[in-house]
């Protein structure tokens, strides 16, 4: 079975606004999976949907553990047939070539011995691995000998007793988490222990672990595959977005487990901000740079002992608590030099004083600007958390509502979608503030801020309705209002994301920080508020 290039069209498309009903209809099989890794964020038309896909959407596909296994098996079978080598050897070769089948076949055709050696395979003809009892055998690991001591060796002939071999393999698998590159126990021997030899030696539990680890290397070896980072989720996501495209798209994907995350950086959904801004923002929020900023805006240092002083009232006559140095808060000069003009510093208008004041003012403005965006960012983050709490209560509300108003389960689902919309929109809003912090001021920014304002107002409106007590929720009028507001919120979110993503793809945003890649950086910091 080898149909190709229709995985590009098999996308979870515009209905990912409600993550819980994400489609699994295109999961039917792994065989329609194309192994060419073409860079294709696919921002344009989609063949099977036949209408314009929204700009922020990117194509991806979710694979469950069985799919991943099947993909590997298919590839192994194919190489096994084309190159006339055993399946175990095919698997080792494929792993060595990071599952690039074409390159493997090409290189192998050119020079089989070199390829085999580099991958850790012997060149002798294949024979079934088996245990042997050799007369006069002494195990180099445990130094045991004697008649009837079963021993094992892979093709290199480094022979050890079965117990040691077993012990060695379980050490590698259990303690070191190694699977794809378990080498012969002999020092300096690069030959790889293949899966069939392993199956012969170890117990079923270890065998299972071994194959699990092998599966893992398959996903980790391929750039187009990534594990879903949600706890206990075993699915992998395939997406064609390349690292170099990350300044143009925010590749948000959603797993079958309903977890939504960015394929570029594995953090949870951070649309509309591109990965690099997110990284910068998180670092800015996490590190001490802003503490330093606050200190420089609000404190001065004692001119003598350099202790940091915050002036919280009183006159300009400062006496340092530590070194007892007396100075003027205004000019930082010695208090004794002030002579008779005590309590009104006549050196205030001097040049040095003006400069000091300017430096302080500048520092305050940039601090205030940061705090403006940070407060709103943090507020939405917290509200999203609170909305989640409310949702757990809502579930109870829904049950209660069914009892009290006689509504059916399906009729109270509107609360569920309202809650989902609230959380998704808040997540988006949160990142719009981080995004806006790095935006230079221009017309696009005005439009962006309008969109942001609209979404924010809608979300706050919905949030308010959502908190009403059950008795009011039963009112059919309110129900209609909530449903309207929910879909309005979702629509506003799409409009905002669509706009930002389109401009990002076209490289139209101007940021006040340097973004690696092709993003324009002109306009720069002069546009700060």
């Amino acid at each position, binding site marked *: 079975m080898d149909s190709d290039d229709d995985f590009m069209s098999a996308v979870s498309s515009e209905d990912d606004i409600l993550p819980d009903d994400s489609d699994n209809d295109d999961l039917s099989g792994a065989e329609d999976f194309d192994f060419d890794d073409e860079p294709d964020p696919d921002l344009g038309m989609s063949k099977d949907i036949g209408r314009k896909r929204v700009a922020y959407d990117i194509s991806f596909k979710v694979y469950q553990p069985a799919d991943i296994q099947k993909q590997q098996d298919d590839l192994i079978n194919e190489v096994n047939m084309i190159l006339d080598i055993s399946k175990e050897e095919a698997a080792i070769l494929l792993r060595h070539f990071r599952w690039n089948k074409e390159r493997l076949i090409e290189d192998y055709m050119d020079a089989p011995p070199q390829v085999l050696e580099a991958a850790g395979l012997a060149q002798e003809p294949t024979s079934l691995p088996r245990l042997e009892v050799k007369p006069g055998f002494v195990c180099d690991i445990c130094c045991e000998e004697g008649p009837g001591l079963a021993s094992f060796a892979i093709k290199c002939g480094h022979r*050890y007793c079965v117990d040691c071999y077993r012990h*060695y393999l379980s050490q590698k698998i259990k303690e070191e988490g190694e699977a794809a590159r378990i080498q012969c126990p002999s020092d300096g021997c690069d030959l790889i222990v293949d899966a069939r030899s392993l199956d012969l030696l170890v117990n079923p539990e270890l065998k299972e672990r071994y194959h699990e680890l092998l599966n893992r290397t398959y996903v980790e070896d391929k750039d187009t595959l990534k594990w879903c980072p949600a706890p206990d989720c075993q699915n992998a996501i395939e997406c064609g977005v390349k690292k170099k495209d990350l300044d143009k798209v925010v590749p948000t994907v959603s797993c079958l487990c309903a977890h939504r995350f960015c394929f570029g950086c594995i953090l949870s959904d951070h649309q509309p901000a591109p990965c690099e801004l997110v990284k910068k923002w998180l670092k800015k929020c996490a590190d001490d740079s802003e503490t330093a900023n606050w200190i420089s805006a609000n404190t001065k240092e004692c001119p003598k002992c350099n202790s940091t002083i915050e002036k919280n009232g009183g006159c300009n006559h400062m006496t340092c608590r530590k070194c007892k140095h007396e100075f003027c808060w205004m000019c930082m000069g010695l208090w004794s030099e002030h002579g008779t003009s005590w309590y009104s510093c006549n050196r205030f208008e001097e040049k040095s004083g003006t400069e000091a004041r300017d430096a302080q003012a500048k520092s305050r403005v940039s601090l205030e600007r940061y705090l403006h965006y940070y407060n709103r960012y943090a507020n939405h983050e917290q509200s999203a958390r609170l909305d989640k709490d409310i949702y757990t209560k809502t579930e109870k509300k829904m049950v209660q509502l069914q009892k009290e108003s006689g509504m059916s389960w399906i009729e109270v689902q509107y609360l569920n979608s309202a809650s989902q919309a609230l959380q998704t929109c808040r997540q988006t809003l949160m990142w719009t503030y981080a995004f806006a912090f790095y935006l230079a001021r221009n017309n696009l920014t005005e439009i962006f801020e309008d969109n942001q304002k609209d979404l924010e107002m809608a979300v706050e409106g919905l949030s308010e309705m959502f908190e009403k007590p059950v008795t009011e929720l039963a009112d059919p009028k309110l129900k209609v209002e909530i449903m309207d507001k929910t879909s309005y919120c979702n629509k506003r979110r799409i409009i905002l994301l669509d706009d930002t993503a389109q401009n990002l793809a076209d490289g139209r945003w101007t940021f006040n920080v340097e973004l690696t890649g092709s993003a324009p950086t002109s306009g720069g910091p002069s546009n700060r508020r």
Partner: protein
Amino acid sequence: MALPKRIIKETERLLAEPVPGISAVPHEDNLRYFDVEIHGPSQSPYEGEVHFAVRYRWRGIFKLELFLPDDYPMTPPKIRFLTKIFHPNVDKLGRICLDVLKNNWSPALQIRTILLSIQALLGAPNPDDPLAPDVAKSWKENEQAAIATAREWTQKHAVPN
């Protein structure tokens, strides 16, 4: 727990046919714990004081401790310098950065081969893969001065008493 045959055989051979410049003696009350002495290799700053007439006035002798964990030889022995040494791949606690003691360990390796590797490491410090960054830095910036320091430390700490 009875001592595995492998350890008994290795110990026997270490005592019967010792490696030149290396000695490893197990404790009587714990046969997995060894007192090790390694002579600084010649032509290295760990060699000791060379005197033309007698070749050596004294020799740099480094004490190490070696412990064989329960799952030896599946896991490598644990080894640590007890004598202070100025070397880019040995930190101030005496821990050693050596590939065969970590991921390149093979159960077919032995105490004997490991100690030889450590002796070779003394002869060929590798400042590009440092465990003691400050030592490695001085090694890369001014090798002559670093070697002089290593010699000085050898004189100070690795003298036989």
